[in-house]
């Protein structure tokens, strides 16, 4: 019941007028970011972080706004899946399977409305799961010593690629690069490392600059390379005619999808893509022959969409309780926490209870806002979808410049950002994932600190790192996280491909 009290306090924070206003703004911007071409959720949240600083927002307000952006981006991602058969982000892939056929049958408005309701239910289920699970996990995490934390960080890196990831070794390479960049600057014994005497490097590399460069600038370069500046054809959406029976019809699918998605989101290495995939396959199994999946069955829209949103809320659990994010966007949210001087992890639940619970309450409120925003305003978002990237991306780049410039008012940071952008482009070409680089940058200092503490405790005996049952378990899972992609990865990837391949649009 303690939880309930905290939650009520959280609502007190989230319902404060200015917080509510920023939640609404965040939800709107988030949907926009999710819907617009070339602006993934991680990218969008990253660009908004420096702006949140320059606005001088209070920590809880900044976090509430960006969590709403995060939730909104998941809503927005489905719009282009349904209307264009182009998933806005990877987890939205499964929504294409039945959403696009529905749109082709002239039921685009219904598909959008159903997916909004399903997203809402999925997030709601997962947020309730978060409320129940997070305090328990946080309490458990209090028993972690430095050795366990060190192993936990390794686990986070090892599972970041996910079991459907392609080449785990590239995740390792990426993580090393990120961790190496994190060691630049003056360490906590006061020694300068890799600063090359450059004054600006004494404080290390600001990860916000790195994140914005890696995501936003490299995205611009990718669009230029693909010459995808032209944009898409204009779309129209029919008038909505949705009956209660339709919503009742998709309720069970949404609930199942939400629960599954939540589990996939919490577990390391699963992630939203797998969540929506399992959501879809399960729906197909449960409904069986009565359904017409792949030909515009509303339940085929609801299941994966609920799963995808459930997973994104579920992914907040490890981020908030352990301080280890499981996805790119939660990594960016972690960056925000660290820059706000809030140490993520179990202590946050006691030391910054108002912030944590304010954010959780904001998630609940944000979901209602998103549902309210999404059904009547979908027309606006659809219009924005046809903004050609050739105008959009340069403006986004400019906003990234303004944001970074406003942090410190120096051009040095801007050069740095461009350099990270070029590096990000090269990494993406080589299929080196960017998220582990960022996670390395974020977790590097903590990881080294925990290693140092563990060694101080054991007086230089390295075996302390695998001395407790918990630590051994974490090492084991980390090992599995690297080995499993080789074993089951190809199989799962093939299955996902088969489903999306055959389920896509057949003719026209």
């Amino acid at each position, binding site marked *: 019941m303690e939880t309930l009290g905290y939650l009520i306090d959280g609502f007190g924070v989230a319902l404060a007028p200015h917080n509510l206003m920023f939640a609404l703004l965040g939800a709107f911007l988030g949907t926009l970011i999710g819907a617009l071409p070339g602006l993934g959720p991680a990218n969008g949240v990253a660009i908004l972080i420096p702006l949140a600083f320059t606005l001088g927002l209070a920590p809880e307000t900044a976090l509430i706004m960006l969590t709403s952006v995060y939730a909104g981006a998941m809503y927005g991602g489905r719009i282009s899946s349904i209307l264009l058969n182009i998933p806005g982000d990877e987890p939205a892939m499964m929504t294409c399977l039945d959403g696009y056929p529905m749109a082709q049958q002239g039921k685009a408005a219904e598909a959008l409305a159903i997916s909004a309701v399903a997203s809402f239910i999925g997030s709601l289920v997962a947020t309730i799961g978060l409320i129940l699970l997070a305090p328990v996990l946080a309490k458990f995490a209090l028993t972690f010593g430095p050795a366990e934390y060190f192993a936990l960080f390794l686990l986070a890196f090892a599972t970041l690629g996910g079991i459907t990831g392609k080449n785990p070794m590239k995740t390792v390479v990426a993580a090393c690069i990120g961790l190496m960049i994190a060691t630049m600057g003056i360490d906590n*014994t006061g020694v300068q*490392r890799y600063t090359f005497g450059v004054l600006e490097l004494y404080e290390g590399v600001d990860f916000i600059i790195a994140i914005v460069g890696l995501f936003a600038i490299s995205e611009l370069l990718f669009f*230029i390379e693909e010459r995808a*500046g032209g944009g898409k054809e204009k779309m129209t959406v029919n008038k909505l005619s949705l009956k209660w029976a339709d919503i009742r019809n998709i309720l069970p699918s949404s609930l199942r999808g939400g629960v599954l998605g939540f589990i996939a989101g919490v577990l390391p290495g699963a992630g939203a893509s797998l969540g929506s995939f399992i959501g879809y396959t399960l729906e197909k199994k449960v409904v069986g022959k009565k359904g017409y999946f792949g030909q515009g069955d509303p339940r085929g829209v609801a299941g994966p969409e609920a799963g995808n949103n459930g997973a994104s809320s579920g992914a907040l659990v490890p981020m908030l309780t352990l301080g280890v994010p499981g996805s790119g966007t939660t990594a960016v949210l972690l960056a925000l926490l660290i820059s706000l001087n809030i140490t993520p992890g179990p202590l946050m639940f006691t030391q910054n209870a108002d912030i944590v619970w304010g954010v959780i309450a904001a998630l609940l409120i944000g979901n209602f806002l998103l549902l309210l925003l999404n059904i009547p305003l979908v027309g606006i978002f659809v219009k924005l979808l046809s903004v050609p990237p*050739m105008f959009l991306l340069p403006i986004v*780049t400019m906003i990234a410049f303004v944001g970074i410039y406003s942090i410190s008012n120096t051009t040095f940071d*801007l050069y740095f950002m*461009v350099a990270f952008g070029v590096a990000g482009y090269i990494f993406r070409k*080589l299929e080196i994932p960017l998220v582990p680089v960022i996670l390395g940058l974020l977790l590097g200092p903590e990881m080294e600190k925990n290693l140092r503490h563990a060694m101080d405790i054991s007086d230089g005996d390295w075996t302390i790192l695998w001395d407790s049952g918990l630590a051994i378990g974490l090492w084991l899972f980390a090992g599995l996280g690297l080995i499993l992609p080789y074993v089951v990865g190809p199989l799962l990837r093939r299955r996902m491909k088969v489903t999306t391949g055959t389920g896509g649009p057949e003719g026209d």
Partner: protein
Amino acid sequence: MNDRIFGILLIVLAVAYGWGATQLPAPFGGSEAVGPETFPLLLSVVLVLSSLYLIVRPDPDNAWPWSRTGIELLIAVVVLVLYAALLQPLGFILSTTLAVGTLCWRMGSAPVRAYLTGAASGVVVFLLFNFALDLALPLGVLSFLEVG
């Protein structure tokens, strides 16, 4: 082939980084179990091993954009660098007009529309930051416009 070259570069980086770690001075107050060099040394070992894997078992290559697209990319990077360099001297509005305009134009828009977009976005963001958010962006050569 890409992976092999990258792997070799990374090994060079890792060795240089590891060597750099051994050159770090001992912290004030004597050495400890984990000094400033321990963690970097660990990283360089892991990076050498994982890069070796890339060299031994490389993934299939993605094509690099040579020729025209490559030049477009180069132009874009040059524009970004110039944007950063000119932001203070030229001022936010002018440099944004040039940078956003050039990028829009190179991405396929008609030149007039491109630079109009750039100018409009520059003015709007400038006004928004200076008046609504109370954050001064540089005016540069347009500083004679400054009010009060």
